[in-house]
């Protein structure tokens, strides 16, 4: 007897969004299940960053965004964070004038004091390279360390789903592997991850499923184990794939 799969943690249906008059996303359907790593790939200008912003509430949306059973559409990022959805934005933007410790502290702004300190220590424990610099201002960190700090900011609240926007951008290969190893450990620990990445090979190596986005629509959805995935992705990127190329 078939057992119906549990409701996905994140369920996006018919999502459209954009900036002012410019419509960027057209009717996106996307799901992320518990403890799953989903990669979101696509050429530049496809709308990947816009999609993450729409989900976390930084942009107005039409359509439905359900997270953990709650409807997030139309709410602001504060509510998303409280519901357990963390969004690490593109460009390793941390607060450079504040210390590493303070950066993490702001991630748990509305928790009670005792709990705040505990969570910050926990996050620092995950990332020894920045733990060593806890009292230094973020401006003195290297680009890679700032990216690690940004990821730590996302994690300090123990989110159920962590959305990462191109965490490898501007990082050396060693640090890229470091960040992706963190993603792997997160999955093992039960956190789901939605990963937007430029480095396709690395993303496919750690993801369970992949979506390809082109010109504001999903053009491909597949499990990473499928055999002809690289070719299908290439076709999708270079715009010769049709939206019908969806297989699970």
């Amino acid at each position, binding site marked *: 007897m078939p057992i119906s799969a549990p409701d996905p943690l994140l369920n996006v249906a018919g999502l459209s969004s954009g900036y002012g008059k410019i419509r960027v996303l057209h009717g996106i359907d996307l799901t992320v299940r518990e403890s799953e790593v989903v990669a979101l790939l696509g050429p530049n200008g496809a709308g990947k960053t816009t999609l993450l912003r729409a989900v976390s509430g930084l942009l107005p949306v039409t359509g439905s965004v359900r997270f953990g059973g709650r409807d997030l559409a139309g709410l602001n990022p504060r509510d998303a964070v409280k519901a357990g959805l963390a969004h690490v934005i593109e460009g390793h933007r941390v*607060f450079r004038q504040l210390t590493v410790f303070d950066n993490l502290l702001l991630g748990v702004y509305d928790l009670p004091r005792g709990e705040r300190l505990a969570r910050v220590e926990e996050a620092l424990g995950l990332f020894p390279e920045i733990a060593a610099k806890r009292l230094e201002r973020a401006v003195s960190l290297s680009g890679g360390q700032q990216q690690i700090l940004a990821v730590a900011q996302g994690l300090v609240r123990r989110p159920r789903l962590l959305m990462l926007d191109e965490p490898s951008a501007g990082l050396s290969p060693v640090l890229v592997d470091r960040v992706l190893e963190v993603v792997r450990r997160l999955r093992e620990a039960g956190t789901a991850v939605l990963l937007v990445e430029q480095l396709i090979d690395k993303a496919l190596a750690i993801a369970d499923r992949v979506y390809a986005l082109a010109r504001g629509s999903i053009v491909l959805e597949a499990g990473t184990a499928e055999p002809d995935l690289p070719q299908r992705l290439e076709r999708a990127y270079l715009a010769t794939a049709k939206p019908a190329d969806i297989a699970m």
Partner: protein
Amino acid sequence: MVQSIVTTGLAIGCIYALIGITYNVMYSASRVFSFTAGTLGMLGGVLGALFIGRMGMPVAAGFLLALAGGALLGLVTEIVAVRPVLKSLDQHLYVLSTLALALMVQQFTAIEWGTEARPFPRLLDIPRGDFDQQFWLPMLACAVVIVGLELLHRHTLVGRAFLAIAEDTYAARALGLPERGLRMASFALAGAIGALAGFAGGQMLLAFFGNAPLLTFYGFVPVALGGMGNNRGAVVAGLLLGLFQQAANFLVGGIFASVAVFAVFIIVLLVRPEGLAGAAVQRRV
């Protein structure tokens, strides 16, 4: 004579510096400048004279109420003149909305309080001296505000959240910080600082509605010269401005002192539009 110039100059410089800090706190929270900063200074003096002088309240009570009045105007500025225009596409509407609000408050004061300068009560019952309370009260206020802001930013979570919003609003929002609440709190704080400037400086400037345009301009000079959002720069520039103004007053007389200040202000800005300590303008394309 020199001593008098220095004392007066530093005292009035502290008042200008505090108004500059008022501008800066509002700017850090919202990326806009508000015309109400100078009006807040005026209000601090008027409210102090009203509560303590006319209504006979004890000094401490009048002081707190004056600050509360300033905080209230700061809050109103955020809600009425800043928040609605932040969303709009026209980036310069805030200049007009804050100007309108400032004018309304000034005119209301002119009508209800009167257009002449009224005396401001003596706050501390100690004999007059050379280094009188009218001089060291503004300096004390300035020092308290500087130290207070430093403590706020370094040792409280709210203060650190203020710094985060000032540095990168977008990242702060994405992190889930309560942007609107923090902005309102910043504006209330700025309002209290402005009122403090007027209250502490009341014995020098008197309770006069015409202080508003004066403080609007002279309080902005420290911001322009010290760099937007830079409080330390504002203090240094404010003190220099006060000293320069008093020296010019003594050497060439009142009117031409104003012309001198204005000329220096314009020349510095034309040479370095970002101020002496500010950061250069970013890419626009």
